[in-house]
């Protein structure tokens, strides 16, 4: 059954019923015998159960079902209302509330409710409520008694093993909070343990552990002949294990504690319930902190559709602006201006809606690097900075592979083996730093390693050998230009082809991908000291601000992001240096690129203008003046590709549709800067 259309109703109604539940539970606490209250609660729980089952929220349904059963019992005097019981009921409603909130936020309403369902089961059966150790919390460590519940059989094994000269240990393993593969780590821990002895019991159960159904801590009862210190040391070797505590387990103490627990049952129980309550409160607080503003989840497809529709709107906006200019009607102009402003705001909102933190790409790298390090027998740590930097989703989708490639490259060619590093007097552990940050309309992603750097001469020789450049070209290259040769096709300075980064596809693929995203990549390296790959990416891909210029009768667009400024100079101000035309721009010699010549613009009239219009563009720290015929103005345009037939057109990064319906080409100024 298609239920999405009822979701809003469901959320509204369940919130109401939950409110009722809270209120009536509070009332019930004061008047435990009041039948009307019990009836009310029963009805609320019953409706909630029905609704959530219809909507397919099974966890919600099963928990409310338990609640319903209990109150059914109370209704018919099978169960009597007790204070301890109330606490569990409140916790249960807290859980329900959290689930409904999750659903309201677009989640699936799933929540681990096994513990509370267990408790409610006991209440339902009228059993004495014993606080079973639910999710292992750190506070529990401080208690002297064991956190494990052992059955008769396990106790027998433990006492027998003791008689045979084995030691019983209780081992608490704490995983790091950023651990990605909890299941795998658990497996590794258990494998190690099984080599040393025998695991009698674990909390949570092995099944739960395998399903990663636990926080970051688990406890096992372990029988071995090994010493506690050895066990601890061995377990600590498993990666992502934060802490291992090995405590000798004394059977007698356990039994005593158990008896004590039984004796002091009511008091202790109260205390624990209070602790749970506190914990719950704390959790609620945390949630509030994490999400101060309300969020909803939206299908990414809808965002794409929204974006496409908005792009259409931007094109029409351009057309309207032009019409209003042509008609020169005041009222029309005002309205169009207003509309333009509103649509710019709209554009900003849509663009921010599509932003995703780059962490979604970065978070897979630590694991990848660890694995690679093992394959390559290198010791490498990764440092990630600025993982919360946000980028357009389309960029995020595309940037993953190039980054993987660059990291593999840094691991393979950059970082040396520990032996080599030791010889060079570096720490044996290499380091790769991944940093992302915003700057202006761009996002920068830098991958730096403290490895061998790039051997400039080796790169040059290879480039000459492969015919990428000539001998004479090689002589005039700057360091950076030389480094960037490794981004050209068919380049791998490592003599051996490895399966990590040298698989026939070179870094040119990376360069192409990044350039197709409208970004660029530069390399800096210190021989022996490491290298830095710096990637500059546009914040968004689809709508950009451009300066429209005219070359004879053709219109071209230059992205504003690369423009420093525009200038109109007299012809006399153009100088010749080594057959190159240059200008003096604020004390700097800037080479000129005559777009009319570069683009072979058919000209029908000879240039007689006394003035030249120049757009100063920048790539990195290099400037170039693009000579155009005239400036038209600034405009927001929708970036479109030229299609698959025309790929890699020199100095053209794409096209856009102007207000008059004609296509204007977008100039890739990066390839014009020399």
């Amino acid at each position, binding site marked *: 059954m298609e239920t999405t259309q009822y979701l809003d109703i469901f959320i509204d109604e369940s919130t109401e019923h939950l409110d009722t539940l809270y209120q009536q539970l509070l009332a019930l606490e004061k008047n435990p015998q009041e039948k009307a209250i019990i009836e009310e609660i029963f009805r609320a729980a019953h409706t909630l159960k029905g609704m959530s089952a219809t909507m397919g929220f099974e966890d919600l349904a099963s928990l409310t079902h338990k609640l319903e059963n209990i109150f059914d019992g109370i209704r018919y005097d099978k169960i009597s209302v007790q204070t301890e019981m109330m606490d569990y009921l409140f916790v249960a409603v807290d859980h329900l509330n959290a689930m409904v909130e999750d659903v309201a936020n677009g989640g699936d309403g799933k929540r681990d409710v096994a513990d509370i369902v267990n408790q409610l089961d006991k209440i339902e059966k009228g059993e004495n409520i014993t606080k079973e150790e639910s999710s292992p919390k750190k506070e529990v460590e401080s208690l002297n008694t064991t956190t494990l519940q052992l059955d008769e059989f396990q106790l027998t094994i433990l006492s027998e093993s003791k008689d045979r000269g084995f030691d019983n240990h209780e081992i608490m393993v704490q995983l790091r909070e950023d651990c990605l593969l909890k299941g795998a780590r658990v497996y590794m821990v258990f494998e190690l343990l099984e080599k040393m002895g025998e695991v009698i019991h674990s909390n949570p159960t092995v099944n739960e552990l395998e399903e990663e159904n636990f926080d970051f801590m688990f406890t096992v009862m372990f029988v071995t002949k090994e010493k506690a210190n050895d066990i601890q040391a061995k377990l600590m070797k498993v990666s992502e294990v934060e802490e291992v505590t090995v405590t000798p387990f004394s059977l007698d103490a356990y039994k005593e504690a158990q008896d004590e627990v039984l004796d002091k049952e009511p008091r202790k129980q109260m205390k624990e319930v209070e602790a749970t309550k506190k914990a719950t409160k704390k959790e609620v607080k945390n949630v509030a902190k994490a999400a101060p503003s309300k969020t909803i989840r939206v299908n990414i497809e809808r965002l794409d559709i929204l974006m496409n529709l908005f792009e*259409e709107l931007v*094109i029409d906006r351009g057309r309207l602006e032009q019409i209003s200019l042509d008609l020169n009607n005041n009222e029309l102009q005002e309205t169009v201006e207003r509309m333009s402003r509103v649509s710019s705001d709209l554009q900003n909102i849509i663009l921010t809606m599509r932003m995703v933190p780059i962490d979604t790409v970065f978070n897979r790298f630590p694991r990848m690097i660890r694995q690679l390090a093992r394959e390559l027998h290198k010791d490498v740590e990764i440092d990630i900075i600025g993982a919360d930097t946000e980028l357009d989703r389309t960029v995020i989708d595309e940037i993953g592979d190039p980054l993987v490639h660059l990291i593999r490259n840094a691991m393979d060619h950059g970082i040396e083996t520990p032996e080599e590093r030791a010889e060079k007097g570096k720490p044996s552990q290499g380091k790769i730093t991944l940093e992302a940050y915003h700057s202006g309309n761009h996002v920068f992603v830098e991958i730096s390693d403290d490895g061998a750097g790039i051997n400039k001469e080796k790169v040059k020789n290879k480039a000459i050998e492969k015919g990428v450049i000539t001998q004479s070209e090689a002589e005039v290259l700057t360091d950076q230009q030389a480094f960037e040769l490794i981004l050209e096709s068919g380049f791998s300075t490592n003599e051996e082809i490895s399966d990590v980064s040298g698989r026939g596809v070179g870094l040119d693929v990376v360069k192409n991908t990044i350039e197709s995203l409208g970004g660029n990549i530069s390399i800096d390296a210190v021989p022996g000291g490491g290298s830095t790959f710096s990637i500059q990416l546009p914040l968004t891909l689809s709508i950009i601000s451009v300066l429209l210029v005219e070359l004879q009768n*053709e219109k071209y667009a230059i992205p504003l992001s690369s423009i420093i400024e525009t200038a109109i100079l007299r012809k006399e101000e153009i100088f010749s240096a080594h057959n190159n035309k240059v200008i003096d721009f604020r004390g700097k010699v800037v080479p000129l690129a005559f777009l009319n010549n*570069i*683009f*072979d*613009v058919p000209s029908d009239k000879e240039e007689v203008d006394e003035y030249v219009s120049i757009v100063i563009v920048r790539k990195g720290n290099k400037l170039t003046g693009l000579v155009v015929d005239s400036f038209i103005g600034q405009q927001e345009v929708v970036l*479109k*590709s*030229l*299609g*698959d*037939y*025309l*790929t890699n*057109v*020199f*100095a*053209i990064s794409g*096209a856009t*549709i102007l207000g008059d*319906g*004609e*296509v*204007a*080409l977008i100039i890739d100024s990066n390839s014009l800067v020399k």
Partner: protein
Amino acid sequence: MNEVNGLENKLIVFRLEGEEYAISVQRVGSIERILPITRVPSTPSFVKGVVNLRGVVTPVIDLKERFHEKQTTFTEQTRIIIVHIDDITVGLIVDEANDVLDIQQDQIEPAPEAVGSAVVEYISGVIKLEKRLFILLDLEKVLNKADMTELRTLEG
């Protein structure tokens, strides 16, 4: 074309320099009148540029120039046939496009050594029908990108 079988035997016929060519109707997206064309620099001369095809920027090539090294002069009859090959969408400028042909597979004959003036490698067969001769074009080869790169390097 290989995939012309019993079911797919409708062809679009167009005229180029007085000769009649045919392409499978399945390749054809639409037939357009001449649209404003924006020249794209640093491309082979037969690539006339790009047009705004209902919001999609689409490259157009002049088939006459591709085959005959001779530019099409645009007239009222000049058409752009939008064709789709794999992922590529391209507009072909032709002198006239106004006919659809139903043929049987067995009517297609292999291309003779010298037929018309289109280079033989672009021809996948010919069809003789009464007194007319239709040249069946192999669009994959016409739009071969490797070919284009070659041309580009020759020019550039």
